[in-house]
């Protein structure tokens, strides 16, 4: 369990980082929580590791133009504890689910999104919120929306010479409520199934969107506005959580049947994952709706 030989560089500027990445076989080292085990098991053999931790500008966490901007070396735990993340409530809900505290202290937000593990939390959050990914290379910069970013298991549109320099999460607007939940066999494990939910209620307008993870080769986003509207029609406009959950239950089963397309493994069969997703959907859509209505009341007063 020792890595194959590799070269190691630690540039101080983004310019130098992308120059290094332009060489064949170079790989970015940020928090190392996925890459280092891959190296130790010789499952990956980059010729050069480009350590980006000495680049000051990549460590920026800021807010502008209605977004939280998270730089490439910002740790998950830093984002979790920073006041800025309060304006993106879905991040606050999701971040504690990532691994264990020790992992969050090293693991980076951008690293998790670039790694694109189908069972990871942050790619789902990025998808649900339609976050924007900023990619930089010697060829320039480009912005990619989450809907176009993830292309499969552990794969994204990032080219080998590109660095994911920043992720922009939109801050929550009035009348938005969120839900996030996942199920794993042990605390801190990758989820067997999970769901991130955003519900927007403004006046009579209703929009509900869910991103499920751990159930396909990438996060799967579905519009569940119709299902939520139908459930509300059934249980009345001011339901309790458990009433709304019951109203959503059967509809959640249908959504789950659609979104879950992973072949099962020893921890969870496809059918069991559908069962888990359905339960999470009903619970988290209900939670998101109830917070969205109370959020709009607060903002109305």
């Amino acid at each position, binding site marked *: 369990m020792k890595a194959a030989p590799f070269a190691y560089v630690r540039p101080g500027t983004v310019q130098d980082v992308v120059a290094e990445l332009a060489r064949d076989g170079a790989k970015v080292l940020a928090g190392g929580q996925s890459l280092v085990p891959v190296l130790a098991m010789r499952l990956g053999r980059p010729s050069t590791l480009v350590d980006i931790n000495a680049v000051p500008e990549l460590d920026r966490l800021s807010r502008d133009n209605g977004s939280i901007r998270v730089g490439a070396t910002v740790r998950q735990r830093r984002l979790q504890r920073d006041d800025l993340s309060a304006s993106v409530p879905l991040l606050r809900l999701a971040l504690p689910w990532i691994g264990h505290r020790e992992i969050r202290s090293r693991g980076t937000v951008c690293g998790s999104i670039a790694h694109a593990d189908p069972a990871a939390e942050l790619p789902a959050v990025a998808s649900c919120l339609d976050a924007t990914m900023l990619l930089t290379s010697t060829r320039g910069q480009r912005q990619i929306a989450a809907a176009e970013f993830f292309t499969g298991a552990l794969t994204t549109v990032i080219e080998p010479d590109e660095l994911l320099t920043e992720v922009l999460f939109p801050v929550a607007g009035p009348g938005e409520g969120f839900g996030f939940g996942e199920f794993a*066999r042990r605390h801190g494990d990758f989820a067997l199934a999970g769901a991130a939910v955003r519900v927007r209620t403004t006046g009579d307008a209703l929009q509900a969107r869910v991103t499920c993870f751990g159930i396909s080769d990438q996060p799967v986003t579905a519009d569940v506005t119709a299902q939520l509207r139908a459930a509300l029609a059934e249980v009345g406009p001011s339901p309790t959580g458990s009433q709304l959950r019951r109203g959503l239950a059967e509809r959640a089963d249908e959504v789950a049947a659609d979104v879950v397309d992973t072949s099962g493994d020893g921890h*969870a069969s496809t059918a069991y994952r559908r069962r888990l997703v359905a339960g999470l959907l009903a619970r988290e859509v209900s939670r998101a709706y109830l917070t969205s209505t109370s959020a709009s009341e607060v903002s109305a007063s």
Partner: protein
Amino acid sequence: MTGLARVEDAALLTGQGRFLDDLDPLPGTLVAAVVRSPHAHARIRSVDLDRARSHPGVAAVIGPDEVLATLKPFPLSVKAATPYYPTATDKTRFVGEPVAVVVASDRYVAEDAAELVDVDYEPLPAVVRTDRALQDDAPLLHDQAESNVATDRTFTFGAVDEAFASAAHVVSRSYSFPRYSSTPMECYAVVAEWRDGVDGPEVTAHANFHGPFSMAPVVAGALGLPTSSLRLIVPADIGGSFGIKSAVYPYIALMALASKHAGRPVRWTEDRLEHLVASSSGSDRLMTFEAAVDDDGVVSALRVDLVDNVGAYLRPPEPSTLYRCFGNITGAYRIDAVAIRARAVVTNKSPTGLNRGFGGQQLYFGLERLMDDIATSRGIDPADVRRRNMVTSDAFPYATPSGGIYDSGDYHRALELALDNAGYEQLRKEQRISRDNGEWMGIGLATIVDPSATNIGYVGLATPVQDRTARRGKSGSTEHVRVSVDPQGIVSVLLGSVPQGQGHATVARDVVARHLGLPVEQVRPRVEMDTATTPWTISSGSYSSRFAPLLTSALLEACDRLADTIKVAASVLLQVEPAALELADGMVRVSDDHERAVAFRHAAGLVHWDPGSLPDGCSARLYEEAAFSPPQSKAASLTDQINSSLCYGFVADVVVVRIDKQTLQVRIESVSSVHDAGTILNETLLEGQVHGAMVQALGGAMFEEMSYSDSGQPTAGTFMDYLCPTAAEACFPLTSAHQETPSPLTRLGAKGCGEGSSMSLPVAIANAVADALAPEGVQITSLPLHGNVLHQLLNATNGD
């Protein structure tokens, strides 16, 4: 009884532990990496070591040719045509099986060169499942063998057929027990050196091997050396084992051979990937239990059919998983007749071995599930079925039909205590309400006999009587110590008990201090196993909960003799008869006149400095060795009976679970457990053993499984898939209580206590889950139990 804090902890908690990786015992040591088979079953067409040998920094590379040139197959526990070497020779038989060893300047270089070893494999069909291995047309693992059944023995004790013929009811069930391990924090480690001495080759090996030291002659046999030419040295600190590290020994032979070829000492440290696929594990078992039962649920006879899956080789001490519990195969119950069929099959999985509970969790999964199935089928409460069948307190010593002699116990009192602490009657009421509300709540019991201080004579049972060599029997559960006193009266206790974190030093110090009337500070335990200098024998080692019953008994024997010498010395100083003296408060004093006293250290000083003043015939000897040798541990009888352990404790577990109807997650609401390990030596350590055994049991019951695909690829080869419970999973409410019925066979009345709940809790959890899902018609016949498994079980039931 004491709660004395562990003397071991300060060093461990401040990073001062001395594990083998911290030590550099043999200067100039090189580092090895092992090339392993990616195939579950393949013929080795050729092995080309040239490219690896010419890699810069490589000192030696050895493969099957070098192994066959120097080593003999390891001597097996039974006659079976399944030759076992430390590497594959003709075929590889499990994924992860060593094929070659690269010795280099460091591990990175060794792993680089390991990739250059060229092995040409011809893949063969694999056999993984036990039921498949039993079939005549299954792929054959060992070409010289007639089948994959490596051992098959039947035994009948008492009037079994008559009991079944006259039984009002027969309850018969088949169960399977999964394969899981114990994943200590420290993996295997060996530093070995081969030297050619005057009397032939000599091997010195440092390893975190903890016995049984019956494996020392096994390793020496493979090396073709007398046992004394193999010097085994074990570091004072071992980072856990729970039995698994008993299987370090093949690597001792392998690294000794690597050293022979490298001309330098060789270090090999197993990494986690190697550990998970190729070290060892408990064996998985298919079993059928059949009981002859009367209308009241009282069992008069048992039929037991056990098939262990021991993996690719019958690696010693296997097939002992079948026999470790032979004397207590009828458990806590008064059952006079039992028929047993004991088989082990070889398959393309990694070889099995010791794992905390060794054979107990497998046996009791069948027996205790059966007791619940008897209760259900007769409409009797599971607690009642146990009350009606358990051995009564007036029956001790109780002889089991298979040869066990239960030394002491009060099973009914212990069960009642466990039930009371659980609030059993109230729980059953709550369960009725929960069921009315459509909730899944279950209560599970297990009552088991906890064998300790193994009599290794059970190994002989695997060989039929007519094939056992006369006067070459096997028996014994002896334990050895040396105690000495220095000129200042400081008592040194040399412990060759090779602990892996249990706290032997703490207890030994306490026991010796009490027995010699000294403050604990005056007793210095030293943990050191060096087969060249430490007293030891075949049965030595840390396994089968031997320390508390055996080693402490040996300590008292040695201390008695030391005390005699000290009293003689004090009698010179006090001018009284030695018989009039006693040891207390650091003094030697006249029993009926405490004012007349000399310090222990002055008496010790006299022996060292002024032996001329001792009476004639008194030897100036302040070191004593003792070998506690209980006469009850005899070889298997000609009728195949064996008292397979010296002591038999008892455990009663009561588990309450709730199952979430959406996620199907099993939540342990509470556990009530009562242990009777005889006299308690240290409350804190005993409670630690209870907790540890429970977490290990929880792993096997709900999380861990060494699973394989049908083609023999391990599917839980990393900690991403092999799920050990963490603190978050293990924090269930526990009421742990203890009962003390001292063993009449050990000096302090102590029995072993390191394994109990690892045998009982897996089935108690299964019984609770079965109870919770009983309204759904779900049968629980295997482990582990988690949402995915329950989903399948529930769907299968609904689909009917």
